[in-house]
């Protein structure tokens, strides 16, 4: 993984000092709260319902054991003993004191971490496929390009006061595990006919109150042009994105209102001036960044094949966990392990300091000291020998980290909702917990198969409900919480926006409604191989609506 050089260390130190000075000027009254807000947001500090929240960047979701231990230490020392992993591969702390934040940032800097641009109307932490560098289907590792973008976008003089936040995601294969079609810029690594590496470029995807899928504006952009082309997109957006209404300020609205052909022509015209300039990436620099992401030396561990088969036979719990949470690695003797942060009835994405320490230790013992955070709020150990799966599983079990539900109905994404967030209209966490408890039986989950439920506590859609196979949106109606359901969303390479079923459900009804939807799927699927989303796409929304609202139809 990437290691800071002297320049990076000095930069982050200077940024900590800069922010400490800003905090001091705010506390002395030199800066008004209005002027301070964008400054603190640009360094990840939010004001929530009960306290400040600090969001720490985990660039493209990659970290090592030492960094994870530091995150645990911060949770223990400055917060209430836990942290929350987010859908953008970051971690947030819900209870830090503003006066402690400079000290937290100094601690983070010791392990090459920061909170730069995890919020605010600037280019946010760049995300990537959590299986990068390990997946069998990868064209190239997306992280070196995400790292180049991270560096280039840090305290960018031209793009620090954009119309709105700006999110870039990079995926390294056809199979999109980074949800690039719901990002402001989505980049898909690919090769052209001559075998040169580059990107398909998508712009204008986003969720929020106006969910829109991204449009492809370039089928192939050579890798050397990554920064110049991104600059062209950013400049056109910075100059022309709407600033009169924050709900219409994302680039998706500019794409929609200008038309993708015209906007793309403007971007190309801008790029014509920039492409041969100083932003062109030399091959040597791309190669140098790539060397940081060289895969670990994986020695052959073929004994794991036989061991794995024997262990699975003797322990059904282990077999179930392997079936759900372990995915094939490009090296046949190794596997990629998902550590679920979705215990049955738990809070999606939360991890205690002790759990973080345990993951750090296990990563160092079994996984070449690499950890990933997924946009589905789980953790991944990307390089584990098959032969180490059983001891790893035993250890995870002791720390409550062996829930075998990756991709199943209880692997729920949920935003913090009204329990924490100042923007929320409704609670998300208790809804996730109740659904998780209702469907917690392993047999029942396995019977239902792959099903993604995503819950947002307001229309800003941080819980990605628009791309949930089942999406749940909390709204406020006459002072009470109400939950709208949408069906058929998806955030992968077959991305789609879910459609609302009809009237919303009260907190006491929502889990029953989810059960009705699940039962309708089970009754209609052709066989167990037809997943929920495939079934929905075949039969449409009507059978589900009929089941959800049948009693009303009869009453009318």
């Amino acid at each position, binding site marked *: 993984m990437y290691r800071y*050089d002297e*320049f990076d260390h*000095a*930069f982050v130190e*200077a*940024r900590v000092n*800069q922010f400490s*000075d*800003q905090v001091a*000027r705010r506390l002395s009254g*030199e*800066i008004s709260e*209005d*002027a301070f807000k*964008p*400054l603190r947001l640009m360094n990840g500090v939010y004001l929530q319902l009960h306290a400040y929240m600090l969001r720490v960047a985990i660039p493209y979701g990659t970290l090592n054991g030492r960094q994870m231990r530091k995150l645990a230490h911060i949770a223990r020392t400055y917060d209430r003993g836990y942290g929350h992993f987010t859908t953008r591969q970051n971690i947030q702390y819900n209870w830090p004191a503003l006066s402690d934040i400079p000290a937290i940032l100094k601690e983070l800097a010791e392990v090459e971490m920061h909170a730069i641009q995890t919020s605010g*109307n600037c280019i946010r932490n760049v995300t990537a496929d959590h299986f990068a560098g390990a997946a069998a289907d990868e064209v190239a590792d997306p992280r070196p390009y995400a790292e*180049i973008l991270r*560096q*280039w*976008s*840090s*305290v*960018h*003089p*031209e*793009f*620090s*006061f*954009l119309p709105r936040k700006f999110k870039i995601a990079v995926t390294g294969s056809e199979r999109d595990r980074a949800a690039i079609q719901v990002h402001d810029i989505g980049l898909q690594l690919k090769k052209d006919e001559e075998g040169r590496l580059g990107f398909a470029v998508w712009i204008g995807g986003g969720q929020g109150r106006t969910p829109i899928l991204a449009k492809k504006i370039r089928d192939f952009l050579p890798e050397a042009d990554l*920064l110049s082309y991104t600059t062209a997109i950013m*400049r056109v957006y*910075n*100059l022309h994105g709407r*600033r009169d209404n924050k709900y219409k300020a994302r680039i998706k609205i500019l794409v929609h209102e200008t038309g993708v052909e015209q906007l793309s022509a403007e971007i190309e015209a801008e790029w014509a*001036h920039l492409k041969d300039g*100083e*932003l*062109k*990436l*030399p091959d040597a*620099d791309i190669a*140098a*960044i790539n060397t940081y992401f060289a895969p670990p030396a994986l020695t052959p561990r073929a004994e794991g094949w036989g061991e794995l088969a024997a262990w699975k036979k003797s322990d059904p719990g282990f077999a179930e966990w392997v079936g759900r949470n372990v995915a094939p690695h490009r090296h046949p003797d190794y596997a990629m392990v998902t550590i679920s942060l979705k215990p049955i009835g738990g809070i999606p994405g939360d991890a205690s300091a002790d759990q973080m320490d345990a993951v750090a230790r296990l990563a160092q013992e079994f996984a070449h000291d690499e950890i990933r955070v997924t946009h589905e709020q789980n953790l991944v150990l990307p390089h584990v020998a098959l032969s180490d799966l059983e001891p790893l599983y035993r250890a995870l079990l002791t720390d409550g980290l062996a829930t075998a539900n990756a991709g199943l109905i209880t692997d729920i994404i949920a935003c913090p909702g009204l329990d924490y967030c100042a923007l929320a209209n409704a609670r998300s966490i208790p809804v996730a917990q109740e659904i998780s408890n209702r469907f917690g039986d392993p047999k029942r989950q396995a019977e239902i198969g792959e099903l993604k439920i995503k819950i947002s506590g307001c229309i800003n859609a941080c819980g990605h409900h628009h791309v949930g196979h089942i999406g749940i949106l909390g709204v406020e109606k006459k002072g009470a919480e109400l939950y709208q359901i949408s069906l058929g969303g998806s955030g992968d390479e077959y991305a789609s926006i879910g459609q609302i079923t009809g009237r919303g459900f009260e907190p006491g009804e929502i889990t029953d409604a989810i059960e009705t939807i699940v039962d309708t799927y089970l009754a209609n699927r052709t066989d167990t191989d037809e997943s929920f989303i495939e079934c929905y796409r075949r039969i449409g929304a009507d059978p589900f609506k009929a089941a959800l609202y049948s009693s009303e139809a009869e009453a009318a």
Partner: protein
Amino acid sequence: MSVIWTQNGIVENDPWISGGEGADSPKLLPLAEALDHAQDNAPFGVVLQPADDVRALAPILERVAIVALTFPAFSDGRGFSQAMLLRERLGYKGELRAVGTVLLDQVPLMLRTGFDSFEVHHAPTIERLVERRLPGIDLHYQPSVDRTDTTTGYSWRRTAILNG
């Protein structure tokens, strides 16, 4: 009270200060007027709003004494891109001033995008500028139009050249 600040300090009796409506003082003209005025002999400056296309100035830029870009709010960053286009695309070499809401934390970024003078109203900002205690970072992860050193490793990195 507002002052004009440059890297050399406070500018006394600056002729272009907004609202300085002396009959003889030269004028900062809005874009449309500036385009009309271009045939006159008297020196003139231009003040642009964030929605103005700076490229419209191309035909008359040689005759313009100063360009002022307006920041209607701290959070409105269009002026940064306008400045880049003026310096980089149009090759404008004259004075480039930030007017409107100009606060301390924008100034280092403005200097990097080609501004060289600042009309400032905010007293704590003026104080820090006079003391030359700018809150910028001297290490940059991207090229821009300011004077920087390029010998810092990767092609996109720069370090500030600190004057005096």
